[in-house]
């Protein structure tokens, strides 16, 4: 740019009219307007009308508070991680899945119609959208953070402006001008932040709601797929141990029958025991020969029944022991089966928990964005409690999934 094309006014838009005396107030207002104009993202040549408008804006919006968008940004980052994790978990299952075609024949893993290939292709735009949303939430956070940077720059700018001013006879206003510039700049930045966030949030809300809805439906699909894939894993595990399990089930079934017989046999001793007790009591109480004989006969009969019941009980206990011995012989295999089963079930539970908490969190996240929009309109801070809880839950679920 040639030196002579530089215009002082484009940088320091000082209002002036020929023959009108410059006043301290006018100069300070000029600085205020400059700040407001910068804050409103406009580097336009100054005009009195715009200056008054900007000043009115400064005064009118001094009560605007910049909404706290940091929790929304952090939650979006957590959801991005959750959606990625849901993808990773589902993809890993699909990758190992032995797909079949409509005829029941095996589908090659590299075939375009293999579920893993289709899923991978379909999920890529979802992950891009999540990345886009993280960038969006980051841009909101950037607007808030830009205030800090702005304050630092404002100081440097006002120093530079004063350097220019020092060369003129207005130097007497320098210190006051600097102070006013900083103050008005602060207001201008708040307004600009508020307006920029309000504009971005209002524009994005419809898209956010659509993402929330579409990803919510995706999570339902992922849940159905994960349930099916985990079922497939469980079925493979059952087939792997099929003969062993058939054996164990058979023995356990027999054992249950013997347990029932043992109970019956124990119950069968109640009546002869009572008979024996009554007969013994009669023997002790009676002196008559006939009664003594009858009591002895009853006692003998009850004793025989008890001996019979005891023999049955021994038989049953022997059978139970045999069952236990049979089960003990395959205990090692059974332990291996139970361990694998536990591992499959835990993986199933953790991945479904992740999908569920992601789905819930997506709903809270979309609602929180709408609340952010309303909060800006109503000039209040957004309610982020549910969002923070959801984000914490998600982080915990992911941690559990990664370190079971």
């Amino acid at each position, binding site marked *: 740019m040639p030196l002579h094309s530089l215009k002082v006014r484009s*940088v320091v838009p000082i209002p002036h009219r020929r023959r009108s005396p410059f006043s301290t107030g006018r100069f300070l207002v000029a600085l205020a307007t400059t700040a407001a104009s910068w804050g409103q993202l406009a580097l336009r040549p100054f005009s009195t009308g715009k200056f008054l408008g900007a000043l009115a804006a400064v005064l009118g919006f001094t009560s605007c508070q910049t909404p706290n968008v940091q929790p929304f940004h952090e939650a979006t980052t957590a959801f991005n991680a959750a959606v990625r994790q849901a993808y990773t978990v589902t993809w890993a299952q699909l990758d190992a899945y032995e797909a079949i075609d409509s005829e029941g024949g095996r589908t090659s893993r590299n075939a375009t119609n293999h579920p893993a290939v289709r899923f991978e292709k379909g999920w890529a735009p979802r992950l891009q959208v999540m990345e886009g*949303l993280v960038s969006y939430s980051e841009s909101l956070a950037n607007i808030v953070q830009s205030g800090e940077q702005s304050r630092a*720059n404002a100081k440097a700018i006002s120093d530079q402006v004063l350097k220019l001013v020092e060369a003129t006879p207005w130097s007497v206003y320098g210190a006051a001008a600097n102070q006013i510039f900083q103050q008005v700049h602060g207001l201008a930045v708040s307004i600009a932040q508020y307006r920029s966030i309000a*504009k971005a949030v209002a524009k994005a809300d419809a898209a956010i709601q659509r993402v929330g809805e*579409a990803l919510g439906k995706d999570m339902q699909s992922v849940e*159905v797929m994960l349930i099916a894939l985990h079922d497939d894993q469980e079925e493979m595990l059952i087939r792997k141990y099929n003969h062993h399990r058939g054996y164990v089930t058979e023995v356990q079934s027999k054992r249950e029958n013997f347990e029932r017989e043992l109970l019956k046999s124990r119950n069968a001793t109640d009546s002869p025991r009572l008979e024996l007790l009554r007969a013994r009591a009669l023997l002790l109480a009676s002196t008559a020969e006939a009664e003594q004989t009858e009591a002895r006969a009853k006692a003998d009969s009850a004793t025989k029944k008890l001996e019979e019941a005891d023999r049955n009980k021994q038989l049953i206990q022997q059978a139970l022991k045999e069952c236990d011995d049979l089960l003990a012989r395959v205990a090692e295999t059974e332990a291996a089966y139970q361990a694998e089963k536990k591992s499959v079930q835990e993986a199933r539970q953790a991945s479904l928990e992740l999908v569920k908490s992601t789905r819930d969190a997506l709903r809270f996240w979309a609602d929180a964005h709408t609340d952010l929009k309303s909060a800006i309109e109503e000039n209040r801070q957004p309610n982020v409690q549910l969002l923070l809880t959801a984000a914490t839950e998600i982080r915990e679920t992911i941690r559990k999934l990664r370190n079971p």
Partner: protein
Amino acid sequence: MSKNWSLIRANNAWEEVLAELIQETKAAIKAGAVERSAVRSDLREFIEQSPNFDNTVPIDKLDEIASKLHKKLVQADLEDELAKMEARQPSFADILKEIRVITEEANDAADAISLNRVRKVVDSVADALESLQQIRDSIDKADEPKLAKSLDELLSAFETLRATVKP
């Protein structure tokens, strides 16, 4: 849908139960994920509960059939859900475009609020005016009349501005 496996075992009714499961699988494939999940659960129970060493019924064969039915139901769920996800694909592409535009605007706003651009301009103007004065001081009017004239005009404009606003 859940079955009484003890009774089935007692009656050795594995073939009959599998015949039922075949019909239930056909119906579930046309139905939905909930029905498929329930039938899959019964099929797994069937494979696990059926006594493989019992010579009266060729259980391994029955288990193999049950396993294939199970696979068909798994595949049906995957196919359905992948198709639903693929149908939702275009909306994600549209949303991505929209979000990128909004993000770019918001980042521009953040950049503008931070006054980085303004600071650059102010810095350069301040430097430029300083340099301008230095250059003008070092120029001999006779040697560089055109340049000296331009610089004089520019500095004069600044002087006029100063004079205009003098209290």
